[in-house]
């Protein structure tokens, strides 16, 4: 067994658009990363950055146009129908909207039991029930919830049901697509704690997709920053939050409201201007250059390669320049 649970190289996802034969939207371009076994990798970026498309491509919910995703010794992106179906046992996902991801006509017991019916056909009803109850306890659901329907639950409880279903087969890799962003503030931290506990207890390798940077800091060991489908920076958590090397990472961190009025108001400085450009017409060279406070002429001409600066890997021509004041 290698130390990496998942190794992604040069992942590219293109969508052909209706209306015009040559209209192609490139949502993800040459994305690569390694997820070490038992770790959590955060993928952050604003809407349109391609973070959910990466998750969907890895789970084969949308077709990848190019790339390799090595998982359990095979390339996920090249698997045929039947081996892919078998592989899903090891590869599960938790969605953003917990209620929308649960079948409203199924009872909680049926929802959590369904993966067992599919992948553990030899278990009898009593064995399944035992496993379901143990998992419910683990995620903080009560036995009395067994026969209820999803609509009877609040968002946080519904997310617990989604987590129980995803973990029922003891997957190796768990993809969490914005798992706490739709929840009420007082519930977010409950679910963030639960996911972290489960990750440790079950030695899960987790891809944690989120736009909430503080939640990513709490949940992840490594962080990948995406912009317009490209990797801007990958770094260990502490390096990324204390010494970001990409001007976009820096701008993202500075945009997050500080929950302390004195510090928030002392911060000063104008926010990053502009908005993420259309992926139909990405800027030449570095895609971030149209909003970048330190862009130069070469940034319009050359696409910056991902290179090592300090503890980070950064795609910026100017990263690491001495005296550079981001």
């Amino acid at each position, binding site marked *: 067994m290698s130390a990496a649970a998942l190794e992604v190289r040069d992942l590219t996802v293109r969508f052909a658009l209706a209306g015009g034969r040559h209209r192609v939207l490139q949502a993800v371009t040459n994305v690569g990363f390694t997820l070490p076994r038992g770790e959590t990798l955060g993928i952050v970026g*604003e*809407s349109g950055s391609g973070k959910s498309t990466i998750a969907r491509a890895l789970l084969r919910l949308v077709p990848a146009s190019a790339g390799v995703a090595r998982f359990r010794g095979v390339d996920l992106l090249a698997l045929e129908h039947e081996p892919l179906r078998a592989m899903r046992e090891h590869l599960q996902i938790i969605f953003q909207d917990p209620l929308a991801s649960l079948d409203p006509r199924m009872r909680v017991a049926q929802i959590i039991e369904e993966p067992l019916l599919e992948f553990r056909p030899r278990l009898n009803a009593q064995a399944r029930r035992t496993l379901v109850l143990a998992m419910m306890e683990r995620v903080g659901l009560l036995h009395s919830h067994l026969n209820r329907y999803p609509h009877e639950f*609040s*968002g*946080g*409880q519904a997310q617990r049901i989604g987590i129980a279903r995803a973990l029922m087969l003891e997957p190796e890799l768990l993809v969490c697509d914005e798992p706490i962003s739709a929840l*009420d*503030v*007082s*519930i*977010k*931290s*409950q679910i*963030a*704690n639960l996911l*972290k506990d489960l990750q440790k207890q079950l030695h899960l390798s987790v891809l944690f997709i989120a*736009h*909430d*940077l*503080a*939640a990513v*800091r*709490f949940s992840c060991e490594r962080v990948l920053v995406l912009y317009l489908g490209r990797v801007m920076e990958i770094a260990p958590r502490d390096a990324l*939050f*204390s010494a970001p090397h990409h001007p976009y990472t820096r*701008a*993202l*961190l*500075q*945009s*997050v*409201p*500080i*929950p*302390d*009025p*004195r510090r*928030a*108001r002392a911060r000063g400085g*104008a*926010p*990053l*201007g502009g*908005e*993420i450009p259309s992926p139909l017409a990405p800027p030449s060279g570095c895609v971030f250059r149209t909003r970048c406070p330190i862009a130069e002429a070469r940034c319009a001409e050359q696409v910056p390669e991902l290179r090592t600066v300090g503890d980070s890997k950064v795609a910026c021509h100017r990263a690491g320049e001495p005296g550079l004041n981001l």
Partner: protein
Amino acid sequence: MSSTPLLKISELSVGYPSRAGTTRALDRVSLDLSPGEFLGIVGESGSGKTQLLLAMLGLNAQGAQLAGSISYRGHELVGASQRTLASVRGRRIGMIFQDPMTALNPYLTVGTQVTEGLRLHQKLGRKAAWRRAIELLEAVQIPEPERRLGQHPHELSGGMRQRIVIAMALICEPDILLADEPTTALDVTVQAQILALLRELRTRTRAAIVLVTHDLGVIAEVADRVLVMYAGRVVEQAGVEELFSSARHPYTLGLRRSIAELDGPLPERLPSIGGNPPNPAALPAGCAFAPRCAQAFERCLGTPPPLVSVAPGHARACYFEGKLEVSAP
């Protein structure tokens, strides 16, 4: 603040009767709003924060029963005629909604939508309205305003659409700008831009701004004074610095502590508030927060605690007198 309030809400309640009984969306909420003030209202889903904004505009859903008083410059808005409400709405009190896409008509150009208000409320002619529309778009820092006026909402980014919605709320130079989660649907870099714009507008126009949000971080960035709502009631109100430095309600403190931060020591676990937000259709008899509160004792289960002053400009609705702890049962 000693100046006469622009808006005075007293003991406002909003209920929705149904066969199963009345759902209490808002329960005896009082607040004063001074000219030029930036008031933040924070609460989770079901806290009543949106119902409160809608009541100020007379826009609660049909069947809503309102009691109490909303006085705008001495004019009573509760029970007022549609004509009175219409003259206040839009003209004196502007509204910014959460989702700029649904607040705009997808079939009409930006120019048609912005000038509609100008021609209706300000009785401007076509050309004058167009000129004023350009000024308004400039005021909300939209580049190339003339070109934007000819575009449809779908041609604009989310941040640009929200700027248009803000420009429309400014048409009649309102005294009060209500904003319901105006940045929740936006990306974080765009949120920072819109919050900076709202701060700047408040300084420039002297309009009072009421911003409703679930995000204490947003409150810390912009508000002067804060109301914390839970289950239709105000549970704490204070100046923004005081609220963050010395919260006196266990719910406020729990919210404050449960926010993950970008710097400082990384906790092994995030402090959290146990349990779930209450169902507005089935509230407990006493304090609605009691089932989730580490400090709850017998008295909390009886009658709900009234909002009581604990320091100048600082009030809370809680019976507990000792030192607050965060951990929940």
